[in-house]
């Protein structure tokens, strides 16, 4: 199970690193190469986003990657084929991330069955709160996959507990209000938020939205279990090409 895996790893490392990529961006070949470098440079788990035309929770960088990938012909089928391939090829957990319509149109049961068969570990669906996700939750359960839920600074404590009761693997804590890819000011205010998160669940905590460099990672050590890097790698690829990824990740440690 994902939780066990993460806890084991946490005995070896002070903080784990999860990276996020948009499948098919800039191309599927590049996606493969990026994943390869990431795994090689010590990433602990990865979030693979199936692009969607209306990614309302994503900021401009990831939004743009979604659109580009789609306009280059990415389909759900290609994303599944690709994900299955990388799950086979690399020995870290892979999560699928997408908006609920992608699952819904595919058929939630079929989608989840396919995930399971493809060797994926869990899923993040940012526009699916548990209230709307009965179907999703039961299927994920059946296939022993981890549904990752999200905490945000606006989430009341009671709701954190409620969300945690459905979550598996870890909780994805959003560092601040807003969308992905905007600078976060990791102030001390974060502490009280993370304290609440910690108290509400015994799942490991991941922190996303705005992690960009080594100093962020260092700052988060001891506070959370997993740091998430999303938009920053896409920015890097746009600026310096796929080859720059490995160095960037290695430097974070």
């Amino acid at each position, binding site marked *: 199970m994902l939780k066990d895996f993460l806890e084991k790893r946490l005995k070896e490392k002070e903080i784990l690193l999860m990276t996020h990529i948009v499948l098919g961006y800039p191309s599927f070949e590049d996606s493969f190469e990026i994943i390869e470098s990431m795994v090689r440079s010590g990433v602990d788990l990865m979030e693979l986003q199936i692009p*969607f035309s209306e990614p309302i929770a994503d900021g*401009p960088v990831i939004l743009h990657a979604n659109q580009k990938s789609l306009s280059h012909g990415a389909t*759900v089928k290609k994303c599944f084929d690709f994900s299955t391939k990388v799950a086979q090829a690399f020995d870290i957990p892979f999560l699928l991330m997408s908006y609920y319509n992608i699952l819904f149109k595919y058929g939630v049961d079929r989608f989840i069955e396919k995930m399971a068969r493809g060797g994926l570990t869990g899923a993040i669906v*940012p526009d699916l*709160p548990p209230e709307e996700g009965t179907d999703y939750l039961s299927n994920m359960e059946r296939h022993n996959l981890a549904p990752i839920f*999200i905490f945000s600074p*606006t989430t009341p404590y009671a709701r954190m507990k409620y969300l945690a009761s459905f979550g598996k693997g870890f909780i994805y804590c959003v560092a601040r209000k807003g969308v992905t890819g905007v600078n976060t000011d990791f102030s001390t205010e974060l502490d009280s938020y993370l304290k609440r998160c910690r108290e509400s669940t015994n799942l490991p905590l991941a922190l996303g939205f705005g992690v960009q460099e080594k100093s962020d990672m260092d700052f988060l050590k001891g506070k959370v279990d997993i740091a998430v890097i999303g938009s920053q790698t896409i920015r890097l690829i746009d600026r310096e090409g796929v080859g720059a990824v490995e160095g960037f990740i290695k430097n974070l440690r």
Partner: protein
Amino acid sequence: MIDRGYYEGFGGAYLPEILVATFDELEEVFNKAKNDPEFWHEYAEIMSTYSCRPTPVTFAGNLTEYFKGAKIYVKREDLNHTGAHKANNVMGQGLLVKRMGKTRVIAETGAGQHGVATATMAAKFGFKCTIYMGEVDVKRQHPNVFWMERLGAEVVTVREGTRILKDAINEAFRDWVTNMDNTHYVLGTACGPHPFPEMVSYFQSIIGKEARKQILEREDKLPARVYACVGGGSNAMGIFKGFLDDPVELVGVEAGGRGLDSGRHAARLSSQDASVGIAQGYKTYFLQNNDGQMRHTHSVAAGLDYVGVSPILAYLKETNRVRFEAATDKEVVDAMSLTIKKEGLIPALESAHAFVQAFKEAPTLPKEDIILVNQSGRGDKDIFTVADAFADPKWREFIRNKAEEYNA
């Protein structure tokens, strides 16, 4: 968060977690207002002193004669302040914003109509205001941008996606997840996550309430049919709500664009091209491909050029309470032209869709019958689009001369 706002499977609230608390607050404030008899009174009062409610119902005598069938009446939402039914919704939400103590409003806009309405409400109530508008719409509806800026609103051009209404909605959500503390998102139609479909329909129901009373006073009988155009569905819901419990046939008219076969339309409930999906926070019929990616839509009327549709209308379609039809761009221009010439009324291109279907059916109905068409807005704001739709050479000449004057 208990009531998820479902209409037999349509609707719901598919929200990023960060917005859940904001929606809880909104729902609470809305429910309180709805159950407070003073609130509707306050709302009706502001609509009658700031806008011009009740808007009249006009007997279209010349059109009636022309079509030799049912008596045609027109509900005149074009006479609202800012020129369309959008005012009803924004003023209502404005009152809620005051109750929530928020100080900033944001909105998406397609035709620009809802943007102008929101900016107007913000000016009136003293809120800060940001309007998101797709780049395509900014280009075709520039006069509305001009007015929004004069009204003190910031207009943000959205260059993502198809760069029209749906993309503006996405951007507005992105703003909201950042600024929900002081900001309310004034959604412009009966779509989006619960409670928006219900709330927008509630405010727009003032149309149907008035219209039912007015027709009964004038004719002492109910209309046989009521026609409304359907973009997101707010003006349709607004007028239909007055007649839901009556033996009145309700007809929603969508944008048929270049024709239902062409793929270039925005017909979600009257074509085979749409399917149920979940996007922008709610479940309804969307024009999407098999992967669930939203498709390009097309309409001569920017306000109808949208991939989704009110979940309440989706439900009313499935339960056969409302019939849905489509009108093509060409039919729309013809109906608009006829309405202007015969009655001196200038419906918005959006509203003209409802006229198309009413004109098709009027001749088939007996003379004793009454039909009621919702003129959701006035067309004179959209002169650039309308002049292009009419392909008026003098207009082009005028614009060329004006450009030369500016270049000089």
